[in-house]
Protein backbone atom coordinates (compact mmCIF):
# COMPACT_ATOMS: atom_id res chain seq x y z
CA UNK A 1 0.00 0.00 0.00
CA UNK A 2 1.36 3.41 -0.94
CA UNK A 3 1.49 6.11 1.70
CA UNK A 4 2.90 9.61 1.81
CA UNK A 5 5.23 9.81 4.79
CA UNK A 6 8.23 11.59 6.25
CA UNK A 7 11.60 9.84 6.51
CA UNK A 8 11.23 9.55 10.26
CA UNK A 9 7.97 7.66 9.88
CA UNK A 10 9.59 5.42 7.26
CA UNK A 11 11.92 4.33 10.08
CA UNK A 12 8.92 3.75 12.36
CA UNK A 13 7.10 1.67 9.74
CA UNK A 14 10.29 -0.31 9.09
CA UNK A 15 10.56 -1.11 12.80
CA UNK A 16 6.85 -1.97 13.01
CA UNK A 17 6.86 -4.25 9.95
CA UNK A 18 9.98 -5.96 11.35
CA UNK A 19 7.89 -6.77 14.43
CA UNK A 20 10.30 -5.09 16.83
CA UNK A 21 9.58 -6.43 20.30
CA UNK A 22 11.32 -3.81 22.41
CA UNK A 23 11.78 -0.13 21.64
CA UNK A 24 13.75 2.03 24.05
CA UNK A 25 14.43 5.59 23.05
CA UNK A 26 14.99 9.14 24.20
CA UNK A 27 13.69 12.02 22.07
CA UNK A 28 16.00 14.40 20.22
CA UNK A 29 15.39 16.68 17.26
CA UNK A 30 15.30 15.66 14.40
CA UNK A 31 14.59 12.04 15.46
CA UNK A 32 11.56 12.61 17.72
CA UNK A 33 8.78 11.58 15.30
CA UNK A 34 10.40 8.15 14.82
CA UNK A 35 9.66 7.12 18.38
CA UNK A 36 6.52 9.24 18.73
CA UNK A 37 4.83 7.15 16.06
CA UNK A 38 6.24 3.91 17.48
CA UNK A 39 4.90 4.80 20.95
CA UNK A 40 1.47 5.41 19.38
CA UNK A 41 1.68 2.05 17.60
CA UNK A 42 2.52 0.36 20.92
CA UNK A 43 -0.32 2.21 22.66
CA UNK A 44 -3.02 1.38 20.08
CA UNK A 45 -1.90 -2.24 19.76
CA UNK A 46 -0.86 -2.14 16.10
CA UNK A 47 2.64 -3.09 17.29
CA UNK A 48 3.02 -5.76 19.97
CA UNK A 49 6.14 -4.32 21.57
CA UNK A 50 7.32 -3.09 24.93
CA UNK A 51 8.07 0.64 24.75
CA UNK A 52 10.64 1.59 27.40
CA UNK A 53 10.95 5.25 28.36
CA UNK A 54 14.47 6.04 29.51
CA UNK A 55 16.34 9.01 30.91
CA UNK A 56 19.09 9.24 28.27
CA UNK A 57 20.36 7.74 25.04
CA UNK A 58 23.02 5.86 27.00
CA UNK A 59 20.18 4.16 28.88
CA UNK A 60 18.21 3.61 25.66
CA UNK A 61 21.04 1.57 24.18
CA UNK A 62 21.63 -0.19 27.52
CA UNK A 63 17.94 -1.21 27.57
CA UNK A 64 18.17 -2.49 23.99
CA UNK A 65 21.26 -4.53 24.88
CA UNK A 66 19.35 -6.10 27.77
CA UNK A 67 16.31 -6.92 25.68
CA UNK A 68 18.40 -8.19 22.76
CA UNK A 69 20.38 -10.56 24.99
CA UNK A 70 17.04 -11.84 26.30
CA UNK A 71 16.13 -12.67 22.69
CA UNK A 72 13.85 -9.75 21.79
CA UNK A 73 14.18 -7.92 18.48
CA UNK A 74 15.18 -4.44 19.64
CA UNK A 75 15.04 -1.03 17.97
CA UNK A 76 15.98 2.50 18.88
CA UNK A 77 16.65 5.77 17.11
CA UNK A 78 18.70 8.85 17.87
CA UNK A 79 20.72 11.68 16.43
CA UNK A 80 23.98 13.62 16.92
CA UNK A 81 24.56 14.42 20.62
CA UNK A 82 22.33 11.48 21.55
CA UNK A 83 24.41 9.11 19.46
CA UNK A 84 27.57 10.51 21.03
CA UNK A 85 26.12 9.89 24.50
CA UNK A 86 25.48 6.27 23.44
CA UNK A 87 29.08 5.79 22.37
CA UNK A 88 30.14 3.51 25.22
CA UNK A 89 27.05 1.34 24.80
CA UNK A 90 27.63 1.05 21.03
CA UNK A 91 30.79 -0.91 21.83
CA UNK A 92 28.86 -3.03 24.33
CA UNK A 93 26.26 -3.83 21.67
CA UNK A 94 28.72 -4.87 18.98
CA UNK A 95 31.29 -6.49 21.31
CA UNK A 96 28.48 -8.45 23.01
CA UNK A 97 27.14 -9.37 19.54
CA UNK A 98 23.62 -8.00 20.08
CA UNK A 99 21.90 -7.46 16.70
CA UNK A 100 20.07 -4.24 17.59
CA UNK A 101 18.94 -2.02 14.72
CA UNK A 102 19.04 1.72 15.26
CA UNK A 103 17.94 4.66 13.16
CA UNK A 104 20.30 7.63 13.25
CA UNK A 105 19.29 10.94 11.77
CA UNK A 106 22.48 12.70 10.64
CA UNK A 107 22.65 15.97 12.55
CA UNK A 108 25.72 18.18 12.93
CA UNK A 109 27.58 18.00 16.21
CA UNK A 110 27.50 21.06 18.47
CA UNK A 111 28.89 23.61 18.98
CA UNK A 112 27.76 25.70 17.13
CA UNK A 113 24.47 24.28 18.24
CA UNK A 114 22.81 22.84 15.15
CA UNK A 115 19.91 20.61 14.27
CA UNK A 116 20.75 20.42 10.56
CA UNK A 117 22.42 17.64 8.68
CA UNK A 118 25.94 16.44 8.27
CA UNK A 119 27.57 13.06 8.82
CA UNK A 120 30.12 13.66 11.57
CA UNK A 121 27.83 12.17 14.22
CA UNK A 122 27.58 8.70 12.68
CA UNK A 123 31.05 8.72 11.15
CA UNK A 124 32.49 9.37 14.62
CA UNK A 125 31.10 5.90 15.42
CA UNK A 126 32.92 4.35 12.47
CA UNK A 127 35.08 2.03 14.57
CA UNK A 128 32.45 0.79 17.03
CA UNK A 129 31.76 -2.41 15.09
CA UNK A 130 28.29 -1.38 13.85
CA UNK A 131 27.18 -1.78 10.27
CA UNK A 132 26.21 1.56 8.72
CA UNK A 133 23.71 2.09 5.90
CA UNK A 134 23.38 5.64 4.45
CA UNK A 135 19.97 6.07 2.81
CA UNK A 136 18.86 8.46 0.09
CA UNK A 137 15.05 8.11 0.03
CA UNK A 138 12.25 7.36 2.46
CA UNK A 139 11.53 4.12 0.61
CA UNK A 140 15.13 3.07 1.06
CA UNK A 141 14.90 3.91 4.78
CA UNK A 142 11.87 1.67 5.35
CA UNK A 143 13.24 -1.18 3.25
CA UNK A 144 16.68 -1.01 4.83
CA UNK A 145 15.37 -1.35 8.40
CA UNK A 146 13.83 -4.71 7.45
CA UNK A 147 16.96 -5.86 5.62
CA UNK A 148 19.21 -4.60 8.44
CA UNK A 149 17.43 -6.82 10.99
CA UNK A 150 17.88 -9.82 8.68
CA UNK A 151 21.59 -9.17 8.14
CA UNK A 152 22.29 -8.20 11.76
CA UNK A 153 20.58 -11.26 13.20
CA UNK A 154 22.37 -13.61 10.79
CA UNK A 155 25.77 -12.20 11.79
CA UNK A 156 24.93 -11.06 15.35
CA UNK A 157 26.28 -7.58 14.61
CA UNK A 158 24.19 -4.43 15.19
CA UNK A 159 23.21 -2.11 12.34
CA UNK A 160 22.65 1.63 12.00
CA UNK A 161 20.21 2.94 9.36
CA UNK A 162 21.18 6.53 8.64
CA UNK A 163 19.29 9.38 7.00
CA UNK A 164 19.88 13.11 6.58
CA UNK A 165 18.19 15.52 8.98
CA UNK A 166 15.29 17.37 7.34
CA UNK A 167 16.41 16.53 3.76
CA UNK A 168 14.91 13.09 4.51
CA UNK A 169 13.76 13.02 8.12
CA UNK A 170 11.08 15.72 7.66
CA UNK A 171 10.57 15.43 3.90
CA UNK A 172 7.42 13.67 2.71
CA UNK A 173 7.69 11.16 -0.11
CA UNK A 174 5.55 8.38 -1.52
CA UNK A 175 6.53 5.12 0.15
CA UNK A 176 5.31 1.67 -0.83
CA UNK A 177 4.57 -0.02 2.51
CA UNK A 178 5.05 -3.78 2.12
CA UNK A 179 2.43 -6.27 3.31
CA UNK A 180 3.06 -7.65 6.79
CA UNK A 181 2.76 -11.25 5.58
CA UNK A 182 5.44 -10.69 2.93
CA UNK A 183 7.74 -9.06 5.47
CA UNK A 184 7.16 -11.97 7.87
CA UNK A 185 8.19 -14.39 5.12
CA UNK A 186 11.35 -12.37 4.42
CA UNK A 187 12.26 -11.76 8.07
CA UNK A 188 11.53 -14.72 10.36
CA UNK A 189 11.40 -14.23 14.16
CA UNK A 190 14.66 -13.55 16.02
CA UNK A 191 15.91 -16.82 17.57
CA UNK A 192 19.43 -16.38 18.95
CA UNK A 193 21.39 -19.53 19.82
CA UNK A 194 22.43 -18.17 23.20
CA UNK A 195 20.17 -15.90 25.21
CA UNK A 196 19.50 -14.79 28.74
CA UNK A 197 16.78 -17.02 30.17
CA UNK A 198 15.96 -18.32 33.67
CA UNK A 199 15.89 -21.90 32.34
CA UNK A 200 19.55 -21.69 31.28
CA UNK A 201 21.13 -19.00 33.46
CA UNK A 202 24.31 -17.38 32.19
CA UNK A 203 26.43 -14.34 32.90
CA UNK A 204 27.18 -12.13 29.88
CA UNK A 205 29.99 -9.70 29.19
CA UNK A 206 32.31 -10.84 31.96
CA UNK A 207 35.97 -10.14 32.47
CA UNK A 208 37.95 -11.31 29.43
CA UNK A 209 41.67 -11.77 29.80
CA UNK A 210 44.31 -11.33 27.14
CA UNK A 211 44.04 -15.06 26.35
CA UNK A 212 40.56 -14.53 24.84
CA UNK A 213 39.87 -10.87 24.00
CA UNK A 214 41.72 -10.86 20.71
CA UNK A 215 39.86 -13.93 19.44
CA UNK A 216 36.52 -12.21 20.18
CA UNK A 217 37.53 -9.22 18.09
CA UNK A 218 38.96 -11.49 15.36
CA UNK A 219 35.56 -13.19 15.16
CA UNK A 220 33.78 -9.82 14.96
CA UNK A 221 35.97 -8.74 12.04
CA UNK A 222 35.63 -12.12 10.30
CA UNK A 223 31.84 -11.90 10.57
CA UNK A 224 31.91 -8.29 9.39
CA UNK A 225 33.82 -9.53 6.32
CA UNK A 226 30.89 -11.85 5.55
CA UNK A 227 28.49 -8.90 5.55
CA UNK A 228 29.06 -7.51 2.02
CA UNK A 229 28.04 -10.80 0.38
CA UNK A 230 25.12 -11.21 2.77
CA UNK A 231 23.87 -7.67 2.15
CA UNK A 232 23.97 -8.34 -1.60
CA UNK A 233 22.21 -11.69 -1.19
CA UNK A 234 19.48 -10.37 1.13
CA UNK A 235 19.15 -7.37 -1.20
CA UNK A 236 18.40 -9.70 -4.11
CA UNK A 237 15.92 -11.67 -1.98
CA UNK A 238 14.28 -8.36 -1.09
CA UNK A 239 13.99 -7.55 -4.79
CA UNK A 240 12.33 -10.90 -5.48
CA UNK A 241 9.81 -10.28 -2.70
CA UNK A 242 9.21 -6.55 -3.04
CA UNK A 243 10.64 -5.46 -6.40
CA UNK A 244 13.35 -3.18 -5.02
CA UNK A 245 17.04 -4.13 -4.84
CA UNK A 246 19.06 -3.20 -1.76
CA UNK A 247 22.77 -3.36 -2.50
CA UNK A 248 26.01 -2.03 -1.12
CA UNK A 249 26.24 0.76 -3.67
CA UNK A 250 24.06 2.56 -6.19
CA UNK A 251 25.99 3.18 -9.43
CA UNK A 252 24.21 5.66 -11.71
CA UNK A 253 25.33 5.94 -15.35
CA UNK A 254 28.78 4.65 -14.37
CA UNK A 255 29.16 1.98 -17.07
CA UNK A 256 30.61 4.26 -19.76
CA UNK A 257 31.55 7.16 -17.47
CA UNK A 258 35.01 8.66 -17.35
CA UNK A 259 34.21 11.11 -14.54
CA UNK A 260 32.39 9.84 -11.45
CA UNK A 261 31.10 11.57 -8.32
CA UNK A 262 31.32 9.52 -5.15
CA UNK A 263 28.52 10.44 -2.76
CA UNK A 264 26.37 9.22 0.11
CA UNK A 265 22.96 10.01 1.57
CA UNK A 266 20.58 12.44 -0.13
CA UNK A 267 23.43 14.26 -1.88
CA UNK A 268 23.70 11.05 -3.89
CA UNK A 269 20.33 11.73 -5.53
CA UNK A 270 21.18 15.40 -6.19
CA UNK A 271 24.34 14.13 -7.88
CA UNK A 272 22.22 12.10 -10.30
CA UNK A 273 20.54 15.31 -11.52
CA UNK A 274 23.99 16.87 -11.95
CA UNK A 275 25.13 13.79 -13.90
CA UNK A 276 22.15 14.15 -16.26
CA UNK A 277 22.94 17.83 -16.88
CA UNK A 278 26.65 17.14 -17.41
CA UNK A 279 25.77 14.35 -19.86
CA UNK A 280 23.68 16.84 -21.85
CA UNK A 281 26.74 19.06 -22.21
CA UNK A 282 28.83 16.12 -23.42
CA UNK A 283 30.59 15.08 -20.18
CA UNK A 284 30.55 11.33 -19.58
CA UNK A 285 29.63 11.67 -15.92
CA UNK A 286 28.38 9.10 -13.44
CA UNK A 287 27.56 8.85 -9.75
CA UNK A 288 28.65 6.17 -7.30
CA UNK A 289 26.51 6.46 -4.20
CA UNK A 290 28.04 4.44 -1.37
CA UNK A 291 25.12 3.11 0.63
CA UNK A 292 26.90 0.77 3.02
CA UNK A 293 29.88 2.42 4.72
CA UNK A 294 30.57 -0.38 7.25
CA UNK A 295 31.47 -2.94 6.08
CA UNK A 296 33.17 -0.81 3.42
CA UNK A 297 32.36 -2.16 -0.07
CA UNK A 298 35.98 -2.34 -1.25
CA UNK A 299 35.33 -4.70 -4.18
CA UNK A 300 32.38 -2.70 -5.55
CA UNK A 301 34.23 0.61 -5.26
CA UNK A 302 37.23 -0.87 -7.12
CA UNK A 303 34.96 -2.36 -9.77
CA UNK A 304 33.22 0.95 -10.53
CA UNK A 305 36.14 3.36 -10.13
CA UNK A 306 38.77 1.08 -11.66
CA UNK A 307 37.69 2.02 -15.16
CA UNK A 308 37.13 5.77 -14.86
CA UNK A 309 39.56 8.62 -15.54
CA UNK A 310 38.71 10.77 -12.50
CA UNK A 311 36.72 10.34 -9.31
CA UNK A 312 35.49 13.22 -7.13
CA UNK A 313 34.43 12.34 -3.58
CA UNK A 314 31.98 14.80 -2.05
CA UNK A 315 31.99 14.50 1.73
CA UNK A 316 29.37 15.97 4.05
CA UNK A 317 31.80 15.47 6.94
CA UNK A 318 35.39 16.16 7.87
CA UNK A 319 38.03 14.32 9.86
CA UNK A 320 39.65 17.47 11.20
CA UNK A 321 43.38 17.40 10.61
CA UNK A 322 42.96 14.91 7.76
CA UNK A 323 40.32 14.76 4.99
CA UNK A 324 36.75 14.02 4.19
CA UNK A 325 36.08 10.56 5.60
CA UNK A 326 34.61 8.90 2.49
CA UNK A 327 37.57 10.41 0.57
CA UNK A 328 40.00 8.60 2.89
CA UNK A 329 38.14 5.33 2.51
CA UNK A 330 37.89 5.52 -1.27
CA UNK A 331 41.59 6.31 -1.61
CA UNK A 332 42.40 3.43 0.70
CA UNK A 333 40.27 1.09 -1.42
CA UNK A 334 42.07 2.14 -4.59
CA UNK A 335 45.62 2.24 -3.23
CA UNK A 336 47.96 0.05 -5.24
CA UNK A 337 45.25 -0.95 -7.72
CA UNK A 338 46.44 -0.99 -11.33
CA UNK A 339 44.79 1.77 -13.38
CA UNK A 340 43.34 3.54 -10.33
CA UNK A 341 42.16 7.05 -11.25
CA UNK A 342 43.19 10.25 -9.47
CA UNK A 343 40.73 10.83 -6.64
CA UNK A 344 39.75 14.39 -5.71
CA UNK A 345 38.33 15.26 -2.30
CA UNK A 346 35.64 17.88 -1.65
CA UNK A 347 33.82 18.97 1.48
CA UNK A 348 30.36 20.46 1.17
CA UNK A 349 27.09 20.84 3.02
CA UNK A 350 28.31 20.91 6.64
CA UNK A 351 25.72 22.03 9.19
CA UNK A 352 22.88 21.51 6.74
CA UNK A 353 24.08 23.87 4.01
CA UNK A 354 22.47 22.73 0.77
CA UNK A 355 24.44 20.61 -1.67
CA UNK A 356 22.89 21.55 -5.00
CA UNK A 357 23.29 20.57 -8.64
CA UNK A 358 25.45 23.69 -8.96
CA UNK A 359 27.69 22.42 -6.14
CA UNK A 360 28.31 19.26 -8.17
CA UNK A 361 28.96 21.28 -11.35
CA UNK A 362 31.57 23.28 -9.42
CA UNK A 363 33.16 20.01 -8.29
CA UNK A 364 33.17 18.68 -11.86
CA UNK A 365 34.70 21.86 -13.26
CA UNK A 366 37.47 21.76 -10.64
CA UNK A 367 38.32 18.08 -10.99
CA UNK A 368 38.14 17.97 -14.78
CA UNK A 369 40.62 20.88 -15.08
CA UNK A 370 43.32 18.90 -13.25
CA UNK A 371 45.35 15.79 -13.97
CA UNK A 372 46.19 15.03 -10.36
CA UNK A 373 44.69 15.72 -6.97
CA UNK A 374 47.22 18.13 -5.48
CA UNK A 375 45.02 19.60 -2.73
CA UNK A 376 44.05 17.65 0.38
CA UNK A 377 40.62 19.29 0.67
CA UNK A 378 38.67 21.50 -1.71
CA UNK A 379 35.84 23.33 0.07
CA UNK A 380 32.62 23.82 -1.85
CA UNK A 381 30.32 26.72 -1.00
CA UNK A 382 32.34 28.08 1.92
CA UNK A 383 32.41 31.87 2.35
CA UNK A 384 36.18 32.44 2.33
Amino acid at each position, binding site marked *: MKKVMMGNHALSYGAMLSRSQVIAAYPITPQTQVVELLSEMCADGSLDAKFIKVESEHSAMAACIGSSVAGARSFTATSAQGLALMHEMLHWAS*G*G*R*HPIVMGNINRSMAPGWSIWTDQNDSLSERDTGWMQYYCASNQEVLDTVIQAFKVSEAL*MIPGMVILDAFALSHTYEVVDVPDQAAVDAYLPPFKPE*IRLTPTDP*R*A*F*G*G*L*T*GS*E*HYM*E*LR*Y*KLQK*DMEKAPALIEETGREFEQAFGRNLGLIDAYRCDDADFVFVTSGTAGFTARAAVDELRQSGVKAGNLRIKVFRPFPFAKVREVLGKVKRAAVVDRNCSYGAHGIFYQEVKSALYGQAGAPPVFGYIAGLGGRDITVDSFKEVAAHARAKDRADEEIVWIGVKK
Partner: protein
Amino acid sequence: MRPKKANKIVFKSAEEMPLMICSVGHQTHNLTGAWRNIRPEIDRANCVQCGICWKFCPEPSIDVVDGWPVVDYDYCKGCGICAEECPQKCIVMVEERK
Protein backbone atom coordinates in the same frame (compact mmCIF):
# COMPACT_ATOMS: atom_id res chain seq x y z
CA MET B 1 25.10 -23.55 47.31
CA ARG B 2 26.85 -22.83 44.04
CA PRO B 3 29.61 -25.20 42.93
CA LYS B 4 32.89 -24.26 44.61
CA LYS B 5 35.45 -25.84 42.37
CA ALA B 6 34.68 -24.01 39.16
CA ASN B 7 37.50 -24.20 36.67
CA LYS B 8 38.44 -21.35 34.43
CA ILE B 9 37.78 -22.29 30.83
CA VAL B 10 40.58 -21.55 28.38
CA PHE B 11 39.68 -22.01 24.73
CA LYS B 12 42.32 -23.32 22.39
CA SER B 13 40.98 -21.63 19.27
CA ALA B 14 38.66 -18.85 18.13
CA GLU B 15 36.57 -21.54 16.47
CA GLU B 16 35.53 -23.21 19.72
CA MET B 17 34.79 -19.92 21.51
CA PRO B 18 31.25 -18.55 21.73
CA LEU B 19 30.56 -15.34 19.76
CA MET B 20 29.95 -13.41 22.94
CA ILE B 21 31.70 -13.78 26.25
CA CYS B 22 29.22 -15.59 28.51
CA SER B 23 29.52 -18.11 31.35
CA VAL B 24 33.08 -19.10 30.59
CA GLY B 25 34.08 -19.45 34.22
CA HIS B 26 35.93 -16.19 34.73
CA GLN B 27 33.69 -14.95 37.51
CA THR B 28 33.88 -18.17 39.52
CA HIS B 29 37.63 -18.45 39.03
CA ASN B 30 38.25 -14.87 40.16
CA LEU B 31 37.70 -14.93 43.94
CA THR B 32 36.62 -11.34 44.36
CA GLY B 33 36.18 -11.77 48.10
CA ALA B 34 39.90 -10.99 48.37
CA TRP B 35 39.04 -7.33 47.64
CA ARG B 36 36.97 -7.02 50.82
CA ASN B 37 37.89 -4.59 53.62
CA ILE B 38 34.83 -5.12 55.83
CA ARG B 39 32.89 -8.36 56.20
CA PRO B 40 29.23 -8.90 57.01
CA GLU B 41 28.55 -11.06 60.05
CA ILE B 42 25.05 -12.33 60.68
CA ASP B 43 23.71 -12.73 64.21
CA ARG B 44 21.29 -15.65 64.02
CA ALA B 45 19.87 -14.81 67.44
CA ASN B 46 18.07 -11.82 65.89
CA CYS B 47 17.66 -13.09 62.30
CA VAL B 48 14.02 -13.74 61.31
CA GLN B 49 14.94 -15.49 58.00
CA CYS B 50 13.10 -12.81 55.97
CA GLY B 51 15.51 -13.23 53.01
CA ILE B 52 15.89 -9.49 52.40
CA CYS B 53 19.72 -9.70 52.52
CA TRP B 54 19.58 -12.55 49.99
CA LYS B 55 17.38 -10.46 47.69
CA PHE B 56 19.50 -7.31 47.91
CA CYS B 57 23.00 -8.82 47.61
CA PRO B 58 24.16 -7.59 44.18
CA GLU B 59 26.81 -10.27 43.63
CA PRO B 60 24.86 -12.53 44.69
CA SER B 61 26.99 -13.77 47.58
CA ILE B 62 24.36 -14.69 50.14
CA ASP B 63 22.91 -18.17 49.91
CA VAL B 64 20.00 -19.52 51.91
CA VAL B 65 20.84 -22.82 53.65
CA ASP B 66 18.10 -24.52 55.67
CA GLY B 67 16.33 -21.19 55.84
CA TRP B 68 19.37 -19.28 57.17
CA PRO B 69 21.31 -16.66 55.18
CA VAL B 70 24.95 -17.71 54.71
CA VAL B 71 27.56 -15.32 53.31
CA ASP B 72 29.87 -16.70 50.63
CA TYR B 73 33.12 -14.99 51.60
CA ASP B 74 34.90 -16.20 48.44
CA TYR B 75 32.93 -13.64 46.46
CA CYS B 76 31.45 -11.13 48.94
CA LYS B 77 33.16 -7.76 48.29
CA GLY B 78 31.94 -6.26 51.58
CA CYS B 79 29.67 -3.60 50.09
CA GLY B 80 27.44 -3.58 53.19
CA ILE B 81 24.10 -3.46 51.36
CA CYS B 82 22.88 -6.49 53.34
CA ALA B 83 23.66 -4.76 56.65
CA GLU B 84 21.96 -1.56 55.46
CA GLU B 85 18.81 -3.35 54.33
CA CYS B 86 18.42 -5.85 57.20
CA PRO B 87 15.23 -4.84 59.07
CA GLN B 88 16.41 -6.64 62.22
CA LYS B 89 19.81 -4.90 62.13
CA CYS B 90 21.36 -8.30 62.83
CA ILE B 91 24.12 -7.96 60.20
CA VAL B 92 27.18 -6.01 61.26
CA MET B 93 30.13 -5.04 59.10
CA VAL B 94 33.39 -6.01 60.79
CA GLU B 95 36.79 -4.76 59.67
CA GLU B 96 38.96 -7.42 58.02
CA ARG B 97 42.35 -7.98 59.64
CA LYS B 98 44.82 -8.93 56.90
